[in-house]
């Protein structure tokens, strides 16, 4: 039984690594723009399908991983500049913006459904013999995913702390109008954020399908609730928070699944969000009126 638990925890850390890549992108974007982006899952699916198509064209899977991330970045910038900013010009309210992202999500998901002929495609790359460490069984790819997540956290934190753009981003996230009057080009900050968060989103899509070994049009949509839960639980805008929350959610869901309640593993993750909302209302009360759209 302890061995079983240990292996569940190890699986949970792998899930957490995948989740944290997505959640870091989500929280970065949400923290800056204040738009609760429901199309994030759809962009993940775009990243996943890009990697699948490249694999079918016999491109190196590592290159596919990078290009999947790039596809996410491009899609996010196109949606941000081409759609969200147009709505912002028409003084669309913060709340309505979320409804717009929902519309984008419907359009993207069902376009993918139409193009992919509503089928599930198998994606088996980078599979190698698993490594046994006592009761823990991990594939090299899973270890790689965990390392990738740690590297991203370290690099992103360092970029936020030490680069000029990172400082500008933090300033804009806290007080956009002040940042603007201090001469920060918030337009550029937003563009960079879309690129970075979109890249992480696409990357998460590829990493996710590497782990599940299949992709279809619902891939991102089913993962979205956990991403939102991780971002809110970790505190919007905090990368470390997102990773910490991903660990909690990942381990809890895998332990629940390990106990033989597979169908309820996602529910466990959601239950954590509900508990957070119930216990820490102060964390989420902050009036929507005070927040402004940054696009």
């Amino acid at each position, binding site marked *: 039984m302890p061995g079983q638990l240990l292996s569940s925890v190890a699986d949970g850390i792998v899930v957490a690594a995948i989740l944290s890549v997505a959640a870091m992108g989500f929280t970065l974007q949400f923290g800056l723009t204040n738009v609760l982006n*429901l199309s994030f899952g759809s962009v993940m699916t775009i990243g996943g399908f890009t990697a699948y198509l490249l694999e079918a064209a016999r491109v190196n899977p590592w290159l596919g991983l990078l290009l999947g991330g790039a596809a996410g970045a491009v899609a996010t910038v196109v949606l941000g500049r081409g759609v969200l900013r147009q*709505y912002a010009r*028409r003084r669309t309210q913060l709340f309505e913006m979320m409804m717009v992202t929902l*519309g984008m999500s419907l*359009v993207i998901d*069902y376009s993918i*459904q139409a193009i992919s002929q509503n089928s599930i495609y198998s994606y088996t790359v980078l599979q190698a013999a698993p490594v046994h460490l006592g009761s823990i069984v991990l594939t090299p790819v899973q270890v790689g995913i965990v390392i990738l997540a740690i590297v991203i956290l370290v690099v992103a934190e360092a970029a936020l702390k030490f680069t000029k753009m990172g400082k500008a981003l933090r300033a804009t996230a806290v007080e956009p109008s002040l940042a603007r009057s201090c001469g920060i080009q918030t337009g550029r900050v937003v563009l960079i954020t879309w690129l970075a968060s979109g890249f992480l989103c696409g990357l998460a899509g590829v990493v996710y399908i590497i782990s599940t070994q299949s992709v279809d049009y619902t891939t991102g949509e089913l993962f979205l609730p956990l991403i939102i839960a991780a971002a809110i639980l970790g505190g919007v805008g905090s990368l470390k928070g997102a990773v910490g929350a991903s660990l909690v959610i990942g381990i809890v869901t895998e332990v629940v699944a390990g106990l033989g309640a597979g169908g309820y593993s*996602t529910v466990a993750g959601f239950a954590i969000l509900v508990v957070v909302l119930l216990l820490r209302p102060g964390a989420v009360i902050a009036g929507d009126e005070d927040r402004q759209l940054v696009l």
Partner: protein
Amino acid sequence: MSAWGFYVATLLIYFAVDLLSGIALNLQFGYAGVVNFGYIVFQAVGAYVAAVVTLGPSLGAGSYQQYILGAHLPFPLDLLAATAAGALLSLLVGLFSLRRMRRDYQAAVLLIVSLIALQVVSADVPLFNGSNGLTGVGWPLGQLFGVTATQSPWLYTVWSLVVVAVVFVGVSWLSRSPWGRSLRAMRDNQGAASAMGLNITSLRLQVFVIGGAIAGLSGGLLVEYIGAWSPGAWGYAETFVIFTAIFVGGVGNYRGVVLGVLLVPVIFLEIPRFLPAIGYPGLTASLEWVVIGLAWMLCIFFRPRGILPERRLHVTPPGALEPGALQPEAAPR
């Protein structure tokens, strides 16, 4: 009965069911400003409950379908159970999702409820037979007269139109009352409304539960006609068809909702049936959803008040014919 007659009757029944949804969402969104992105879940629970309380006791794990709460309840207990189920689930979900939380979080949580509920019900076979769903649901009211819904679709049409008419009259009466006016105040400015003594949390919960009850009823009405219900029937996107219908027809105007429901879920979604088939089977269905998504985005972009917008209530000065009465304006501006 001709195939055409059957088709028209079926469309009218779908119209009645979607109109119930439109009324519920218009009360919640158009009047109270509560955005219920998980609406379809409350319709689904009504349908499931109506199904299991009419199917009779479940034959258990070995049989072709298994479920909880099996019973043979007579009319009107079936629909009452469906309505109560919708209201009860709304109360539970509302109690945690309608707290003093940012509105975008609220809406996101409701969307997540919709996604999660679908996964749970699909995976949990003993609950409502998992992803295969339930079949063989009958029509308790028809059984009183010894008919089935498929034998006499016109009878079912009349029945569902009667149900929707009662709900229509009741909800529009409530919406015109001081209570409905309080809802509009809350929608326009929550802070000011609470500073004027309105209990926002309680009002939101009230519209949420009333809407949930109507949703449950609509689910019961639908399942007793089509006879089957499964997770395929209540994807999260179904909610947005009704939202789009309200945007098109008229936010805050129940006659507008009638028009919108006629135009979007009934006419628009039926058109492909009469067009030559394109591509592989299922392509048109996907494309329809894409169009719904685009329509939804356009609706927010142009912010239409719909074909029949909310009507302004005019006051006549005291001393005129009908002193101090609030009346709808004569012609829409």
